[in-house]
């Protein structure tokens, strides 16, 4: 944090997965525990994040900027921004959630996980397997037992894995 107390603003470059570069103030990335530790320990000026798609990074930087501007007076506006922020297709929301978890941006992580939970809570077991790319490891006997026990778990929007 010592760097942020010196008057001038430090600049940092983040490199997304497709090599796209994002130049932003160092103070912004301090919201990420991962990047904060990197900046503090190594005084780097450029951080490669190959595992994060540029599209995802754009979204996250957008959030960091908005969050940094948050004051008690624009709380409502920020809430609306948050709502819009997670209003993307489910696959993109999961990409964001995975990246936020990696970057350790705690407040946003909580919010993203809640958003994913809200989106999947009425989905069928089959749809959830598709979304999380899970192969069932139950035997066909166990599987048919479940279908008998909790038929409602296998009903619902089977193919609708995007929303």
């Amino acid at each position, binding site marked *: 944090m010592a760097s942020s107390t010196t008057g001038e603003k430090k600049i940092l470059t983040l490199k997304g*997965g497709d090599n796209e570069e994002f130049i932003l103030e160092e103070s912004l990335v301090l919201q990420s525990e991962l990047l904060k*530790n990197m900046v503090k320990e190594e005084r780097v000026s450029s951080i490669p994040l190959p*595992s994060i798609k540029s599209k995802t990074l754009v979204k996250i930087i957008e959030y960091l900027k908005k969050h940094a501007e948050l004051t008690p007076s624009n709380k409502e506006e920020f809430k609306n921004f948050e709502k819009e922020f997670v209003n993307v297709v489910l696959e993109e929301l999961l990409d964001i959630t*995975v990246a936020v978890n990696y970057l350790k941006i705690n407040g946003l992580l909580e919010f993203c996980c809640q958003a994913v939970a809200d989106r999947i809570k009425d989905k069928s077991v089959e749809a959830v397997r598709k979304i999380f790319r899970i192969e069932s490891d139950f035997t066909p006997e166990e599987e048919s037992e479940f279908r008998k026990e909790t038929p409602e778990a296998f009903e619902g929007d089977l193919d609708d894995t995007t929303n």
Partner: protein
Amino acid sequence: MPPSKGKGKGKKKGKSKKTKNRAPDATCNCIFRREIIINILSRLPVKTLIQFRCVCKPWRKLISKPKFIATHFRHSSSLQPSTGSSPVLLHTRHLKSYDHLLSLINLSSESSSVVELDNPFPFFLQSMVVVGSCNGIVCLCQPPWGDVITLWNPAMRQSRTVPLSKREPIMEAHSSVSIGLAYDSQENDFLVLSLKRFGPETVIADEVEMFSTMSFSWERVPNEVGFRVLGLSCNLIIKGVPYWSALLEDAYGSREVLVCFDLSKKVFDKLPMPGMRLETKGYLVNLEDSLGMLMWEKTDKYNVDIWVMDDEDGWSKKCNVGVLFGFDKIIGCLRNGNIVAEDENGVFFLFDPVTSSVKAKVCIDNANSGSSMIFNYSESLVLIEGMLPVKKQAARDKLARENLLKCGDQLLSFQL
């Protein structure tokens, strides 16, 4: 993650970004990291989680783990605005059959709902008291002797009864038994407290016994404060701690106090009561997981005082609320401080004391007006050993009786 790793990743960029981002986890046959899966699943309703047990073996295992159950309850009971207002448990008597109905009632400005639950309590017993709920477990019992103690997880639809203590109340000596429920989160132990009261003409302190779901046995608890509780169950449970209003006789004379159960020491503590006159009515409530009290004049149906208890300063009046409509009965309040009241037509109102407005209105069908009580409840996946699925039988019997009543009505109108 240390920075050197980040650099290393930079050199290898473009090689296999997908697999690195979503490395398969040995403990989960899924490309997402286990911590993310836990974070997402622990925010789902119990109903959904019961179904998602069928997704794969690792999920099934995870959903039954005590640590996951605790994380899930922390989310389900959190007061965060993002999760919306939490439902409360509603106890009413049926308008005609006078059956005990237990429902989950959701009062919010967006949508209000009432969902009736399958009551595990034997329907043929006329009297039933809802003791309260902690950590997703609801306790029911039969007054006045505090028997048929039933521990019930409504979300998991499972319940069991608690064996009775060998020291049964003595009909001539005791007048009734008051039951309380506590939860010791350190030991993951649900405790049922049984307070045997002597006749109202005596000043003998209550005899206390405690049942632990861990040891599955009863033991005596000393009543060093020397109190006598007033109700047939604890008045309130906050974060696993039950509170009773009680009478105490000591050198200062006879007075009303509050007693609560100290979970770490397993003893009772006494707390002061706010000063109340005979004309006022008081109602103990949970306000953002602190002890609070709603107080109003018996003759004034338009003003309610909200008092809060502070460990250091004791009781203080937080605010006065001018309720726009005249209420017939104050039912209680939600943990966020919104007051629930009932009017003379049996309609429930949710009143926001901050904005002084009615946030939600809901009509409770088939409820005997004036019989309603609400209890804080947050759902959990917790099960107690020996719990069995709640039989649907009770619901079927209820339907049969309702039909019978309908028949009776038709017959009556036919005769007229």
